């Protein structure tokens, strides 16, 4: 809502020392967010005067037609001056705005008497744009004949120097979508009287006898509680809107159109009541609000044909639907430049109904915005009287009268303990103050101590609960007066295991060189296809958005890899070739349920309702993933570089397992996203919980990642569930260690992990640790075989081992490997 300060001052006596910024600050403290304070015609310095064009001489000898004008700017400013002007939209006798030499216009444009087109141009006739009043540069500003005395200061007449506050109005403050509502806040803030124009009775002439005003009705008082029609006939459609009205509309961001339209807009801005003007001659029968029949249609003023149904509240007459209630009128009954008989609709529509209509038709208008936020329930007849009076004052005509239908109005009544505001705020506010402040916002208050009975004013439909009254009181006392205290008790439990795990995993990965990214969860078929994720794979995204930002990515990820791959590609495109990025976040699996439940909000949902609500949601496990590409260790004085490979991907999963204390086993895996020979299945017991390895060459090709890029994805939830809550302390033996190395030859298809398991099994309890330290394939080993070299450490908890015991354990390990893996000692 844009509010010119001059207009506010007309309704409330703001001290003259207060500028726009001071006023804005007051409003902010009252809870209205002032986004900007603009000065109209900012930059104008010096004198603008009202001039009268006495004579125009057309100069034809130049490339474009030029006028040599004699303009009377009054005796105080040198009488008649000669001014060169290129515009052609004016005639001798017109009233214009003249910038005299020495005046500076917006943009630092200094006016001087200068020689041009063979004459001395002694000033400038100004356009709207030159004065910073608007964008209109079609010609110079021609003012109405009675705009002002010749030679008078033109600035206040055209609004130069006025300030305009732009206020972002929150949904609860519908009343602030009017000058009236903002002025009311200021009246309280400055502690001055407020003469409410919204309840002022406008003196209209007695209705013409014999003539019949347009009739009206409401078919549903639940949706339209009040409907009024005021009729004026014999109006002069050519009468212009007064300059001040046009200027105010422009300041508020609206375009002047015609007197009848301008008046309805002006009154809406002033009082907050949307109005609609019909051409009476285009109406047939009573105008009423009601529900649209199924399958009906309406072409609205914006020339859009809209399909309507029983959920649309409309305005109808005997010809059919003529408007979308509270939102926009229809084309057929529109007033035009020949309209002489006018019917003014002023009604009160339910905010929910208008909100639905506006949303359904994606049509947000000045009227719908006000109705959605709540219009003063009793304002309509006052506002239409004000409009009728303005119409007749500037356009003549005869007042025919008003018809109205109205449901009974009962103000919203709220009971509240007088102590409630103080209790909620946590500071003393005595009940006299509570009563006074509630009265200042327009409430009727009964009782003074104990329980107050409060009737909310008609313009505050948002005041329905004690909490609403508490807010009014506390904000008017001032949030800046609240003391700063702390609640007495909170007994926390610290982080949960899941929360600790996420922190530690992130920390461990980052400490080992990985960099965390947070990617968007949106994916599309192309992303999934390029990763070769099969249609029946759980990693194939299935949760779909109804309104995605991009049709390319309408689904929610079921795997972190698409986002990680995209981030990797972006990095590589920017020259960050060596990459180890990871993400830790939720993925979305399975389909959302379909049985819609919407429990009441009057009480706690039942357990069944709560389960049903949760059953609507897909699974959202927490997953960790990484993508690796380029070099892990760069070449340097220490030696050659070491690229990331499949083993780094597996290692990152093992780091995570180690952080959690989970036994993760590695098995040969198969996953279409990964290289079939370089893919590890990450297992906990018998369950696969992740996958790691080198990406499939087809994936690398499709995703444009560098060759040999690797990836890993692991269910953090699964790891967490398998983690030991409390780890047992080990027995640390202080007896000497016995070290034994051995090399075993096994067939190529025997996995190292199987040999390791087998050795461990055979070596028994004396084995403290085992490490594979070399893999050899070559001339000394039979074709199709490889030699695996292991370093074993034996130790007993209670004694020094003797050579015989060590030898036995070693041999048992070898025997075990021979038995289960066909290994032979090399």
């Amino acid at each position: 809502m844009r509010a010119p300060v001059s207009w506010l001052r007309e309704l409330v006596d703001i001290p003259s020392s207060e500028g726009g910024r001071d006023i804005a600050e007051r409003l902010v403290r009252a809870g209205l967010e002032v986004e900007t304070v603009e000065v109209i015609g900012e930059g104008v310095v010096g004198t603008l005067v009202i001039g009268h064009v006495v004579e125009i001489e057309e100069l034809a000898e130049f490339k474009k037609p030029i006028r040599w004008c004699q303009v009377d700017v009054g005796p105080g400013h040198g009488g008649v001056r000669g001014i060169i002007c290129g515009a052609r939209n004016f005639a001798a006798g017109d009233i214009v705005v003249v910038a005299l030499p020495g005046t500076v216009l917006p943009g630092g444009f200094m006016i001087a008497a200068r020689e041009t087109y063979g004459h001395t141009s002694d000033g400038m006739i100004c356009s709207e744009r030159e004065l910073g009043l608007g964008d209109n540069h079609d010609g110079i500003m021609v003012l109405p004949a009675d705009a002002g005395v010749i030679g008078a200061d033109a600035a206040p007449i055209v609004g130069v120097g006025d300030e305009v506050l732009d206020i972002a109005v929150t949904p609860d403050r519908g009343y602030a979508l009017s000058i009236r509502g903002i002025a009311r806040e200021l009246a309280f803030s400055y502690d001055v009287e407020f003469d409410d124009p919204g309840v002022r009775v406008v003196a209209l002439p007695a209705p013409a006898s014999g003539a019949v005003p347009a009739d009206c009705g409401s078919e549903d008082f639940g949706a339209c509680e009040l409907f009024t029609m005021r009729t004026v006939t014999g109006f002069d459609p050519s009468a212009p809107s007064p300059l001040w009205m046009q200027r105010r509309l422009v300041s508020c961001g609206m375009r002047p159109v015609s007197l009848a339209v301008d008046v309805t807009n002006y009154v809406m801005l002033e009082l907050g009541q949307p109005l609609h003007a019909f051409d009476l001659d285009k109406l047939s029968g009573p105008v009423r609000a009601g529900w649209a029949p199924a399958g009906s249609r309406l072409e609205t003023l914006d020339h859009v044909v809209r399909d309507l149904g029983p959920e649309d509240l409309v305005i109808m007459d005997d010809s059919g639907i003529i408007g979308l209630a509270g939102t926009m009128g229809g084309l057929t009954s529109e007033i035009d430049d020949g309209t002489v008989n006018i019917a003014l609709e002023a009604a009160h529509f339910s905010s929910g109904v208008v909100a639905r209509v506006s949303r359904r038709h994606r049509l947000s208008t000045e009227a719908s915005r006000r109705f959605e936020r709540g219009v003063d329930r009793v304002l309509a007849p006052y506002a239409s009287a004000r409009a009728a009076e303005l119409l007749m004052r500037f356009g003549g005509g005869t007042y025919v009268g008003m018809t109205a239908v109205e449901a009974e109005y009962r103000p919203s009544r709220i009971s509240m303990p007088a102590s409630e505001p103080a209790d909620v705020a946590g500071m003393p506010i005595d009940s006299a103050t509570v009563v006074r402040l509630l009265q200042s916002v327009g409430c009727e208050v009964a009782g003074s101590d104990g329980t107050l009975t409060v009737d909310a004013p008609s313009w505050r439909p948002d005041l329905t609960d004690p909490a609403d009254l508490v807010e009014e009181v506390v904000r008017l006392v001032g949030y800046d007066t609240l003391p700063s205290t702390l609640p007495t008790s909170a007994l926390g439990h610290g982080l949960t295991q899941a929360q600790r795990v996420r922190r530690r995993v992130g920390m461990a990965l980052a400490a080992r060189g990985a960099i965390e990214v947070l990617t968007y969860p949106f994916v599309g078929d192309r992303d999934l296809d390029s990763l070769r994720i099969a249609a029946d794979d759980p990693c194939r995204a299935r949760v779909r958005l109804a309104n995605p930002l991009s049709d390319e990515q309408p689904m929610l990820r079921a795997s972190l890899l698409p986002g990680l791959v995209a981030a990797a590609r972006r990095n590589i495109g920017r020259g960050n070739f060596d990459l180890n990025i990871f993400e830790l976040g939720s993925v979305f699996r399975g389909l959302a349920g379909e049985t819609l439940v919407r429990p009441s909000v009057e009480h706690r949902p039942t357990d069944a309702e709560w389960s049903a609500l949760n059953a609507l949601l897909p699974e959202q496990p927490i997953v960790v993933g990484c993508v690796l590409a380029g070099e892990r260790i760069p070449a340097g004085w220490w030696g050659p570089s070491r690229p990331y490979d499949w083993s780094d991907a597996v290692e990152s999963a093992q780091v995570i397992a180690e952080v959690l204390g989970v036994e993760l086993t590695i098995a040969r895996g198969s996953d279409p996203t990964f290289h079939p020979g370089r893919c590890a299945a990450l297992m906990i017991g018998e369950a696969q919980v992740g996958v790691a390895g080198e990406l499939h060459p087809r994936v690398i090709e499709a995703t444009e990642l560098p060759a040999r890029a690797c990836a890993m994805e692991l269910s953090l939830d699964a790891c967490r569930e398998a983690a030991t809550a409390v780890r047992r302390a080990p027995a640390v033996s202080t007896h000497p260690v016995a070290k034994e190395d051995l090399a075993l030859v096994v067939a190529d298809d025997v996995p190292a992990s199987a040999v390791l398991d087998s050795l461990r099994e055979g070596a028994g309890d004396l084995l403290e640790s085992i490490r594979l330290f070399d893999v050899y394939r070559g001339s000394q080993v039979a074709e199709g075989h490889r030699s695996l070299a292991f370093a074993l450490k034996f130790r007993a908890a209670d004694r020094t081992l003797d050579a015989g015991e060590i030898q036995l354990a070693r041999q048992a390990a070898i025997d075990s490997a021979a038995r289960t893996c066909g290994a032979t000692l090399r």
Partner: protein
Amino acid sequence: MLSADAIDGMARDACAAIAAASTLAALKEVRIAHAGDRSPLALANREIGALPPAAKAEVGKRVGEARGVVKSALDDRQVALEIERDERVLAEESVDVTLPTVREAVGGRHPLTTLIERVCDVFVAMGYDIAEGPEVEAEWVNFDALNVPPDHPARTMQDTFYVSSPDSGVVLRTQTSPIQIRAMLERPLPIYVVAPGRVFRTDELDATHTPVFHQVEGLAIDENITMADLKGTLDHFAQAMFGEGIVTRLRPSYFPFTEPSAELDVQCFVCRGSSVGNPDRPCRTCGSEGWIEWGGCGMVNPRVLSAVGIDPVRYRGFAFGMGIERTLMFRNGVTDMRDMVEGDIRFTRAFGLES
């Protein structure tokens, strides 16, 4: 034969040879020659037994003294030569310790993650638990239970991603506030929780908007909670985040789930207000306003308490929330939202393990 002169001469010869030994190897040979089993003094020592008893004592004493002198000369020389050798070897082994040593650089955690942890830590220290909830959320939890009925204009304040269809009743949560509802339905009273999370709105990505962003929300439900408690909690939080003495400011505002509601501003931690009306010393962090818009807060609307079955007469609560991206922007000087979402490793690496 074993005259005093002869014995002294042996000792003298030995000491001269020791002094002349310039390396540990040479000294080793000298040791064998002058202190070994076959050295003159050792041979002399052996002859003592054959001497007449009267001479034994004197010669024995003389030989013993001479051997002592030689041994100590050898030991001293050994120490001196070892020091000399060590100095030389260690000098030879010196390296350029300014060579680059980092083969594998430490990575980085996303600054949004570490900032969320920092916020959570402040509240955990105050006795709050960390609550969480699903990103795909029931519309009822995201809106209805938070006093945003289906046609409320507040639903159009934030543009919502709907899952499956606009009537599915399932949305991407538009705020962290649904976690409040879950906390109130699932936890025993009193409740003190802080709830971080990722939220979604249908904004296109640009320098100041992103469809996916993070919020942190706090909720306290207890008997006798007041708005002054809210103010005090926020003041404490602001000080923990931005430094001693930093305060907050509340401005009246509107949120459906709180009543009274307020916008939350934090005092500028860079200029602390000194840039206001001081054009010579403008402040980029707060735009010379002295305050930075930080979030929203208020007293939990009793209607919300009713919707989760908490007695609004006995219990009151406060709630507050703020955007983490926005906080990171003004706190750490991030100027473009895209830096936080694109995953460029140069951006994140700069923050290391802590933002």
